[in-house]
């Protein structure tokens, strides 16, 4: 099972990126095999004039992740992720390895809608 985590870097000791749509990287992590299977650079979205949330949702879906963990999700992103049946979890900023541990321990909060308004 694959989960996606928004990240400011490419390593397990990078920090969680608190934004979803305009996150710097998405780390795709295989839970069963305990390893990173893909690191996606979200560069093209950083310059997008709009709709970063929607296209980020697309990227997650394309990579077969069933769950995303980030700091916040905007309205377009959450609409997209919900429609694709991808679960959203919220985490405070900490190292990616700590985020994974928290997810596995069941201490992260699952959310069902946008946590922030758009344009932030």
């Amino acid at each position, binding site marked *: 099972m694959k989960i996606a985590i928004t990240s400011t870097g490419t390593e397990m000791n990078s920090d969680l990126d608190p934004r979803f749509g305009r996150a710097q990287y998405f780390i795709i992590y295989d839970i069963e095999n305990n390893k990173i299977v893909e690191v996606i650079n979200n560069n093209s979205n950083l310059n*997008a*004039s*709009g*709709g*970063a*949330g*929607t*296209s980020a*949702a*697309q990227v997650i*879906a*394309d990579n077969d992740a069933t769950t995303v963990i980030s700091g916040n999700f905007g309205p*377009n992103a959450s*609409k*997209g992720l919900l*429609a*694709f049946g991808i679960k959203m979890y919220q985490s405070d900023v900490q190292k990616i390895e700590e985020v994974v541990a928290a997810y596995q321990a069941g201490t992260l909060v699952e959310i069902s809608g946008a946590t922030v308004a758009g344009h932030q």
Partner: protein
Amino acid sequence: MKIAVASGKGGTGKTLISTNMFNVLPSAVYLDCDVEEPNGHIFLKSDIERKELVFIPIPQVDEAVCTHCGKCAKVCNFNAIISAKQKVLVFPELCHGCGSCTYFCPEDAISEINREIGKIEIGKFDQKEIFTGRLNVGEPMAPPVIRKLKEKMIGSSADFIIDCPPGTSCPVIESLVGVDFVVLVTESTPFGLNDLKLAVELVRKLNLPMGVVVNKSGLGGTLINDYCQSENIDLLLEIPHDKWVAETYSKGHLITEDDRYKKIFTKLYHDILEILK
């Protein structure tokens, strides 16, 4: 003649100039292109005779035909359509109505439907037609409503007065396309001068003839006069700082109901005609 009235800065008196110029013309058409905050109708009191809705085309996907190849998402520059294994999602507020997804779908699974973003209210003032554009509150894109208003100019030999939105961005450009002359309204303050320079830069980029009207003149000295002289721009009219003008405007009345100003605005119009010859 199609005359646009614009200003870099808001609140300099654009609507004062455009509505009063319209009032003194025996026959003309008024286009209120300040679709976020249309104010012309306040001064040109008229009943709304009819409304036209403004739409932009957004995609509608036939899921039965769709193979979820994702081509639509790939060609969309605005991230308004995304596609995953079993579903395609459209985000109407992000859509620019460019038609790419519809065109490039290999299965012809996309058709276009109309989404309402605003309206055009049509009325008559003194037997002359007024078109007021209104963008629905919360809608991000003004240009499509303005484009619809500008369509009224096509094939028409009538005189048009076009009230533009303030500023120098896309809605203003859309309002200025195809006009014969731009009147730039400013005030003689540092803010007025700063924003006039931006507006002049824009109008020059669009290669349109222009002239300047200074409102509330006398307050800030010769700031604007000096600028116009050094840039070789016609200073068409100075309206002095006049409490009566401010009060009349605040009540929603036209200053050209007064003979003094009727003559001044009639002269303004003829001066512009002269320049264009």
